[in-house]
């Protein structure tokens, strides 16, 4: 199972970085989401994998590590906040400038002229 998790982390990282290197704001935001998935999964798996051992006192003797879970839980919520800010920035740029390119030279009819 560890192999599957490692493959997933690698794949999510790769897709995230590939999308972040695109030239429009929307794929960059998607890429950031993928990278957040990868990082969260990585931090979580740093607690090592264990099944049927949720850290609830009284239900198990040797639980999985609760600390990375607490870290990742707040990280998930914070990354939502961050994504929302970036989405708003991208929207603002699009409405203000009329293009959604992330590079100064790309994607604008005005700029190209």
């Amino acid at each position: 199972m560890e192999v599957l998790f490692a493959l997933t982390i690698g794949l999510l990282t790769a897709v995230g970085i590939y999308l972040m290197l695109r030239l429009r704001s929307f794929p960059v935001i998607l890429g950031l989401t993928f990278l957040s998935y990868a990082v969260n999964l990585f931090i979580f798996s740093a607690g090592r994998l264990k099944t049927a051992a949720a850290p609830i006192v009284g239900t198990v003797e040797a639980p999985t590590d609760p600390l990375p879970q607490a870290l990742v839980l707040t990280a998930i919520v914070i990354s939502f906040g961050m994504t929302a800010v970036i989405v708003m920035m991208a929207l603002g740029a699009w409405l203000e400038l009329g293009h959604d390119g992330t590079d100064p030279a790309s994607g604008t009819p005005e700029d190209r002229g």
Partner: protein
Amino acid sequence: MNSPARRASLPATIRPEEDPSRMSPALIAALPFLGAILAALAGWLGRGAAALTAGAATALALAGLLSHAPAILNGTPVTATFDWLPALGMNASFRIDGLGLMFAGLILGIGLLIILYARFYLAPSEPMARFLTCLMLFQGAMTGIVLSDNILLLLVFWELTSLSSFLLIGWWSHLPEGRQGARMALAVTGGGGIALIAGMLILGRIAGSHELSVILQSREAILASPLYPLALALILLGAFAKSAQFPFHFWLPHAMAAPTPVSAYLHSATMVKAGLYLMARLWPVLSGTAEWTVAVAGAGLLTMLLGAKVALFRDDLKAILAWSTVSHLGLITFLLGLGTKAAASAAMLHVLAHASFKAALFMVAGIVDHATHIRDLRRLGGLRRAMPLTFVLALVAALSMAGIPPLNGFLSKEAMLENAALTTPLVALLALAGALLSVAYSLRFLAGIFLGPPMETRAHDPGPGLWLAPALLVAIVIASGLMPMAVFGPFVEAAASATTGTPVHAHIALWHGLASPALWMSLAALGGGLVLLGLYPRLRAVWEAAPLPEAKAVFEATTDALARACRRATDLLNDGRLSRSIFAATAVIVALAAWAFLTGPHAAGNRPLLPLEFAPLAGWVLLTAAAIATAFRHRNRVLALLLTGIVGLMLSAAFAWASAPDLALTQITVEVVTILLMLLALNFLPDETPRESTSLRRARDAALAAAAGIGAGLLAFALMTRDPAFPRVSDYHWAQSKPGAGGTNAVNTIIVDFRGYDTYGEITVLGIAALVIFALAASVLSSRTALDRLAGLKLARNAGDPHPPMLVAATRFLMPPAILVGIFIYLRGHNLPGGGFVAGLVVSIAILLQYIASGFVWSERRLRFGHQSLIGAGVLVATLTGAAAWAMGWPFLTSGYTHIHPWPLDEVELTTAALFDLGVFLCVLGGVLLALSTLSRLAQHTADREL
């Protein structure tokens, strides 16, 4: 955690030799800073009040200093030590010995006169209080330097002098010369300060302590250390830059763009003497070696000659004084460099003499400038009749600078010549040349202003406010010249004893007998100086014909070239293209990781793997397919978003499988909210991403992404196949979850209790993020172009009824149970999977469904309170819960709990952590709703808005 032991060590530990009836050295150093604040406040009452306040603080510090004088002059230093950052070897320790007494006396004494002078010098339109605040900050920093007994503390004060002098030199910031002069001074002295930090740290490392009193006892260890030459070079770099020694002398004349009181203070008595102080302070441990003598005496001699020569050919009054200051600083450096006790004693004498006559001369130059508005020597002349009092003051001070008996400048210059005569004939000759030039420029300065045919002017002597301060200094010049042992003797002896570390008995006298070579050298200097003045027109022609490098041009060219190089390097990595900076950053990380992997040892892990299971494998296949499809089909944005949702869903399944029910709940609810957010954004953004990059570029990006992915995957695998190297931190959390925090869900107790402070910060950040979105939207909606573009958008493309009745009815029916579920999840969170984060998200989704089904206008109209107030309430509840612990005498956010039995219910647990979780719940709810409703608010400005 705060241990009581550490707290107990905070108060001052008073050393036995400290006399409680006298002012603590720490207080003496703090008084100018206090004065800076009070002067700023007193500025409301007027100029006089600000000056009086600053003067009173300075006078009080001076009185405190002088109360120690008897003991210090008897050879007993005064100390005070506070533990500050003992772990870094940084103590606030202060010590006043003879050297510190002399320098602190100069700084505070002349500071007092400067405050008086500045009060009457600055035009009524200048902000007096602000000026005095800067001046007092500088005064405090200088006092701190000379009273610190800890080199780290000294370095802090040292940097503070660079910063505060920057403000003072650039006081007239509307003048380009002021800004450029201040920038140059900061660059040179600040750059020197960096070298000094390194040098002092090496010194501290060799001596094994950062206390000066310990370092000064470690001469053998320091001289024997192989690091001695490096430490010496770095320290001298700092001292030379500060004291304007060759080749760093060029900044001082440009700092003359400052108002004259600043020039008189910084460039006669204090800042430029900081470097000299440092060389004197470290004299016992650094001097006496060939390196020291060559570097210090050599630089000093060179600077003395260079400064004197340039001073002779300047016409601006302040420029002459500035270059002569460079020259005299060179003289003192030269004496310190010689390394003998007699020379050190002469150096101390000249520090005092120079401060007195040069400050007086600067003030005189200021008076002349004030009266005539001319500073050019060629246009001035004959002012002796119009300004007789100023003439007398200038006469005495300038003759002292020229080294004419019976003034104090003669004494110190003769002492210098005497010490130079003891070395080689060449050095003696060069020293003589310096003295000769000094005679020439001093007399030229005097004659150029006051002698010759009277100029057309209505100038007259100033009021006592301006002449009192230089008059007092001139009185000292005369008194110390006539009775040197009575006026300067004890201070010079104490300072020289502290400098050399052995008792010194100074023999300062006007007459040493005909056998003294210094007498004949003095006479030669006087005669030669007069001859030089006679030949002046011809020399001037030669000087002007000679090509000379202009230091300012060289400096600016150098800094400009550096700035250009930096900009080129920055542009290479970050030219405003996001894709380029992300590529560069990722490539560096991948390269570093690869380098670490290839050079470091690595072996396979030995932790047993979990067996492959079918259901997770199926989920993995789905996730992988969705992720790969996203990468290939990302141009279709709605499709890419749906695929992303699948990935998120499978991720929450993975969390559920791997014993993290809390994470699974959070991930799935956040996923819903995120998808809603992005769908809203896609309302406005284009549906398609055009194909812009070449296939080569896509291949390059894919290769980098693949490398990063392989690295991340391998790292994760290596981590998961090893057992932790250390005991888990969370073992403590697990064990204490129930007894300590009163909950059985360890994840939740970590969030709301053990790491409550982190969570407190996180919900605040979430709230701020939502407010940022709100503010951004407000700025977008205030822009004409954005509003026009919004008005041109048609959103309801191909959609039939925007609010289908089935959906409306279903969501309204779902609302109460959804909120009930939210409350349930919140309540069980402390013991079972759930909690404020998840509950907040669940309730947000329920409310967002109303927005979707019934529309923005309908939903907003039914809001009883704004989303902002939810965020505020959340943070407030969390804060109050945390602060309530204070009332019990516990640290912030200490939690408590109890169990009650309200009939007819079962046992109910009450915890403060649950209250804190309520804050989390409210903050998450408010943040999510504010973020999404703000986006939908934009839709109200489109062509087909709801009505």
